């Protein structure tokens, strides 16, 4: 398989925080259309790996390629959508201004149209001119989702997207993610909420103290018993 046919390819990735190796020798090939649940205990290195994939932090050793290109290249970044712990939207701007800003930065042909479309899809159209400062937590998270999906990225990197959301907000997010899967987008998401994640995932990657303990398809056992994975692959 050529490099360009692999959505996210990590080869021998190490990351050190001082002397401590937060990631050790990660080898990973995620194909287009796969939805990977990135699991692991606290401190396993999920956030670290996702940030390197997103180009927000550099790997100590090894490289990550997205569709065969380095992550920091402009063209690559245009194809990647990131949703981190923070929501990355501006409190002093309105919902529509936030989306318009990112639409422009991503060089969309018609930032306004995309922005309105995504406001509608996340159920925020009534609040489009409200300042984000006045939004409730659920509304903010929805807007953050809209921002991450705005430029219709081929690869989506999500860090604990379900945390602290209520059932309704989770439903919106799951719906958006499911649609993205249907459209053939690649998704990598870290989470501790195994049920929600495994429900959606086609593949599972398990990090164990910075090492990749398991990478493969999500099997029916996992779905039936969420403890199964940790019992089998985590020491």
């Amino acid at each position, binding site marked *: 398989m050529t490099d360009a046919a692999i959505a996210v390819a990590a080869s021998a990735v190490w990351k050190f925080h001082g002397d401590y190796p937060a990631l050790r020798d990660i080898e990973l090939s995620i194909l287009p259309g796969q939805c990977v649940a990135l699991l692991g205990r606290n401190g396993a290195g999920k956030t670290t790996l996702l940030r390197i994939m997103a180009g927000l932090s550099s790997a100590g050793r090894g490289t990550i390629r997205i569709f065969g290109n380095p992550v*920091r290249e402009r063209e690559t970044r245009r194809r990647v959508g990131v949703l981190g712990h923070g929501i990355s939207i501006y409190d002093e701007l309105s919902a529509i201004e936030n989306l318009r800003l990112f639409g*422009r930065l991503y*060089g969309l042909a018609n930032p306004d149209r995309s922005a309105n479309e995504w406001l509608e899809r996340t159920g925020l159209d009534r609040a489009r001119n409200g*300042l984000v400062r006045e939004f409730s937590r659920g509304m903010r998270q929805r807007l953050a989702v809209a921002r991450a999906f705005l430029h219709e990225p081929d690869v989506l990197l999500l860090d604990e997207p379900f945390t602290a959301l209520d059932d309704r907000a989770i439903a919106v997010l799951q719906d958006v993610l499911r649609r993205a899967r249907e459209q053939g987008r690649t998704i990598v998401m870290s989470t501790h909420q195994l049920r929600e994640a495994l429900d959606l995932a086609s593949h599972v990657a398990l990090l164990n103290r910075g090492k990749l303990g398991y990478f493969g398809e999500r099997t029916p056992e996992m779905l039936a018993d969420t403890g199964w994975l940790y019992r089998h692959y985590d020491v």
Partner: protein
Amino acid sequence: MNFLRQSLTIAAKDLRAELRTKEAIQASLSFALVILLLFSFSFDPSEDEMRALSGGLLWIVFAFAGALILNRTFAREIPNDCLDALVAAPIAGAALFLGKALASFILLFVMELVCFPVFGIFYNIGWTAQFWPLMLVLVLATWGFTVIGTTFSALTVNMRLREIMLPLLVYPLMIPCLLAAIRLTSQLVAGQPLDPEVMVWMRLLVGFNIIFTSLALVLVESVLLG
């Protein structure tokens, strides 16, 4: 000119957010007033002495009040981890830097423009005799300040002691620029033209700007990625 358009988008975003809350500009303006006040009763010079001191006084005020604006440049991105989204977006680090520097420059310049008449009134000094040369000096020195300040704002944005580190790193670096600005401003406020003797300082200012602007544009990418 995609690069320039992106810079302008960033600058416009910063200015819009600032205009909505007006916090940085209001704060730096009132801080400038507070410092003028502090200085006035700490030192109590006569009018002639004051003219000679004016450059030093003004630029110290600008340096302190300006640090507040520059501190906000990247601090503005902290609350919701917005910086991550900007770094992840497909724009060059240099474009991001330039956009932010532009916005800060405008804010700084406005603050300084307001300070001049206030200073003139409080210390009873006519400062308009050499208006345009004075503006030139102001623009040059402010740009130098902006470039260094913006760079260090990016550098210190994730530090625990952000508010302290910025001035600590910036002021010592700024000394050549400040020194030149102080001499030139004192000269011009006193109504004397830019004679060859002080043109040395002008050249220093221009050189300073060129060197640090290029350095900043080259290094900003590594600063942002950390």
